[in-house]
């Protein structure tokens, strides 16, 4: 029992490390995209930045805030206001 708990904790730490590298890599890509003059349209760049941002936020919430493994009720408490915020933001953008 003790052994399996220790293995689970090691897996958690490994996941934390992998998530950290993923976050660092995405941030680096964002900085490169914003500083390099690539032949990408502004709307494509903006879409990429929003996707990267959502990806990073989901990684932090799922792994560092343990929403992936915790009670689903906590996820609902977090997601409902976020969904409302996205609706408001969308309304501002398409107006």
């Amino acid at each position, binding site marked *: 029992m003790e052994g399996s708990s220790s293995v689970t904790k090691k897996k958690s730490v490994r996941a934390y490390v992998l998530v950290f590298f993923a*976050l660092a890599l995405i941030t680096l890509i964002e900085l490169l995209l914003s500083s390099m003059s690539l032949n990408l349209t502004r709307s494509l760049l903006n879409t990429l930045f929003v996707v990267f*941002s959502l990806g990073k936020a989901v990684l932090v919430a799922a792994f*560092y805030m343990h929403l992936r493994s915790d009670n689903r009720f906590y996820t609902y408490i977090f997601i*409902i206001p976020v969904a*409302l915020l996205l609706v*408001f*933001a969308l309304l501002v953008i398409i107006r």
Partner: protein
Amino acid sequence: MSVQNTAQDEHFRAGKALGLDHLKLGMWLFVGSEVMFFGGLIAAFLHYKVNTPSPVETALLDVTLVGINTFILLTSSFTVVLGLARAQNDDRAGLMRFLGLTALLGTVFLAGQVYEFVALYQEGVTLSSSVFGSSFFTLTGFHGLHVLIGVGWALATLAKAVRGGYSRDDHIGVEIFGLYWHFVDIVWIVLFTIIYLI
């Protein structure tokens, strides 16, 4: 008082009456309210960004400096979860090390933000100079205030660990602090994109 009531009271005091940890539930409800708080500020910023574009002021933003600051805040979230993992392993020294590192990284982030604010003020972008200035400083300022509170909370958690607090079976305090800190990190991930990248 009936026997059943007494049992329920004990269950409540143990923090399990809802089948959820009460402290964690309270923290998540607070985080939900904070989403609405920052949601209002972000919606206002986006509204002004779309309807009153400020290309001159936007060009003054130092994306590289803020990108490095973003990396520092992401690293501080990493140190918090490593600290929690140490607490779950009964390694108090490790917990204290990572909490101290978290407070340090939070302070460095704040120093970077102060540097950015001073540079913008020297360029004439102030809280009252324009719609951009007002919405920018309000949004990033409130986030900075949250980081400042988080640094204080990290130090308070560290102080409890120094006094012998937290163990394999009692580390909810570290977890609750972590939830707050990671939320502040997520807010910054969003702000970095909508203010500096888009």
